[in-house]
């Protein structure tokens, strides 16, 4: 029996993975070849998806990107024995893109069948929870604190401190809530993990529950991710049946159950308090803080809220110890981050690497430059609220503090590359437009300011009182930064100002045409 892997990750499916799996099955049948097809997650080399792998005595051999029409020629070339083919890349683990990573969180993703607990256990799954169940909750928290893990959802707040707050409170009910809203453009790490290794998230949340004293948890997944929702629900069911969730987990005396809630297309519901309102079935309005959610969170009870990547980092921290994890990284940015290469890039995908790698290394060494082959002119790091970096800043190491120094943010680790055809005035305009569409409406600077921002930038583009309007835009940015309750209104000025300051020429072009200038008046 020969095992062939065809990913069931949404990105692989978007490039025809289902058709490829069907074609392989029918071709194998025709040739009476004894083939078992496993639907794995993605290895993260999205530019090669669908990436088909064949298990051989030497290891797994990769072919990609495979289309259904390539299947006959793959069989003809002897791909079931790992023989060469024009789509062949040799051993998967030896592909430089993959080999030069440091995979801790994504160690299993793309290797295992996402729904096989046996696979999961074989590759170290549930080792962390097994240890945690035998530890005192406070010792679990100390281990997480030692690791230096900071929130991977954007703000970078130390995870251990958050957990400790919940641990120290007495309450008849506590919750764990996972932020799987992943609304940022250029990010897909949460999605890949939920689809490719869902037990890892479930295990991380269970460890958090044991540490904090919670018995109930929610995963809030955005509605744009139907595959993640299906996969998580299925994996939760499997974990429950095997008593890795539910009452008296593995006879430990701890109980924890987990539910999936689906969002409904609102970016602001990624903000943690807005997410809580949404899980409660309400409008996603941002809450005033204090009280912080650790103290009064879901349904008014103490709640540990973390991003998918933060929870998913925890199992290995418990399994191998906080010190092990801390040994990766630089400065106060410890461990690894799942960098996501997106946009106009030749080899887009996920690169898990310790902090300290530079934007240039990621774009050039892994990404292979732009997809269009033209020079990269700007990279937006950290989602729609992140700064646009010009080429001169590509060598700054990825580190939370180093990025703050250059008025940028690492955020969720997404990099969106633009080539030299980009018009940065349009990108600045879009940042304001996005804020106007997605504002929860609670504060005036964000709700009204963003709409005014679009108008002002339109005037600048149309060359109407240009100097005055640039000054007005700067002023508006200050008002939004200082007067907004949450980071949507507060950080939208970041992409706007970086575009304005780093790419001033784009704001000083001749007016596109007279008619437009008049219309904007």
């Amino acid at each position: 029996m020969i095992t062939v892997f065809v990913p069931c990750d949404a990105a692989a499916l978007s490039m025809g993975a289902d058709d490829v799996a069907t074609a392989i099955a029918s071709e194998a049948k025709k040739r009476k070849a004894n083939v078992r097809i496993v639907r794995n997650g993605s290895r993260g080399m999205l530019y090669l998806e669908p990436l088909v792998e064949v298990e051989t005595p030497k290891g797994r051999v990769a072919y990609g990107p495979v289309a259904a029409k390539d299947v006959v020629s793959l069989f003809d070339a002897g791909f079931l024995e790992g023989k060469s083919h024009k789509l062949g890349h040799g051993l998967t683990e030896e592909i430089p893109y993959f080999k030069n990573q440091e995979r801790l969180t994504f160690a299993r993703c793309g290797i295992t069948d996402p729904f096989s607990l046996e696979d999961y256990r074989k590759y170290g799954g549930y080792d962390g929870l097994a240890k945690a169940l035998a530890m005192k909750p406070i010792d679990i928290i100390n281990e997480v604190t030692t690791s230096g893990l900071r929130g991977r959802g954007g703000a970078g707040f130390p995870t251990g401190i958050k957990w400790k707050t919940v641990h120290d409170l007495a309450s008849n009910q506590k919750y764990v809530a996972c932020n799987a809203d992943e609304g940022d453009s250029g990010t897909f790490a949460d999605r890949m993990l939920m689809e490719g290794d869902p037990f890892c998230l479930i295990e991380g949340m269970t460890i958090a529950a044991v540490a904090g004293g919670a018995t109930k948890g929610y995963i809030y997944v955005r509605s744009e991710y139907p595959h993640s929702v299906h996969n998580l629900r299925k994996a939760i069911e499997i974990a429950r049946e095997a008593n890795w969730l539910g009452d008296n987990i593995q006879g430990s005396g701890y109980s924890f159950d987990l539910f999936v809630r689906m969002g409904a297309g609102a970016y602001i519901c990624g903000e943690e308090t807005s997410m809580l309102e949404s899980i409660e079935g309400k409008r996603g309005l941002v809450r005033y803080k204090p009280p912080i959610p650790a103290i009064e969170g879901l349904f008014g009870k103490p709640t540990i809220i973390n991003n998918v990547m933060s929870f998913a980092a925890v199992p290995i921290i418990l399994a191998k110890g906080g010190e092990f994890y801390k040994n990766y990284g630089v400065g106060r940015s410890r461990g690894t981050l799942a960098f996501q290469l997106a946009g106009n890039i030749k080899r887009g995908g996920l690169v898990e690497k310790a902090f300290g790698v530079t934007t240039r290394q990621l774009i050039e060494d892994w990404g292979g430059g732009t997809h269009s082959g033209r020079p990269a002119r700007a990279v937006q790091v950290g989602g729609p609220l992140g700064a646009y970096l010009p080429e001169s800043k590509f060598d700054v190491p990825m580190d939370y503090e180093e990025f703050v120094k250059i008025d940028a943010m690492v955020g969720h680790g997404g990099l969106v590359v633009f080539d030299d055809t980009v018009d940065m005035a349009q990108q600045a305009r879009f940042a304001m437009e996005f804020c106007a569409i997605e504002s929860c409406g609670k504060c005036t600077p964000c709700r009204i300011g963003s709409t005014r921002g679009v108008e002002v930038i339109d005037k600048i583009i149309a060359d109407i009182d240009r100097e005055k309007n640039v000054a007005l835009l700067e002023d508006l940015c200050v008002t939004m930064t200082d007067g907004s309750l949450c980071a949507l209104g507060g950080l939208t000025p970041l992409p706007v100002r970086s575009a304005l300051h780093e790419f001033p020429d784009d704001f000083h072009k001749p007016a596109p045409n007279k008619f437009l200038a008049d219309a904007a008046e």
Partner: protein
Amino acid sequence: MAKNVTRSPKGPRKQEVKASTPAQVAALSICARHGNKPDELLEIFHEMQHELGYVPEDTLPVIATALNRSRAEIYGVLTFYHEFHRHPVGKHIVKICRAEACQSMGTEELCRHAEARLNIPLGGTTADGTVTIEQVFCLGNCALSPAVMVGEKLYGRVDPERFDEIIAGLEKEAAE
């Protein structure tokens, strides 16, 4: 937190809820499946949309009564989220990603192409009711942009040509 200002202090928890239209009947049975729990309102709307294509206005009063919430609250939730439709939409919803990664790969041109091909603006529904096109911000396929989603099916690297193929498929299916 979790204070419920609209619940009448003395009123009985369970009121008699009358459904007179098929949509109201459907709404009530979906609410009942969710134990009439107000915190499952988003799930309830998702299911209604799945069954009826949208959330009809006349179901809001019965949902409000079933969940013991004010109509204003139910209406407020429905209108807050981009995903929910208050009016009938096309048989297929085609979501085109307009966020940054897709922008860098030409999604603005793709949007203009889609509007011209279908002769409707973003947000519009074709005259025969086959397709509604919508803008969304990120489908998590940013490494293979521009991205498009039809129902729950995701597509990567969608250029105008591939877009036309997708639409042709939907139109063919509708004609059969």
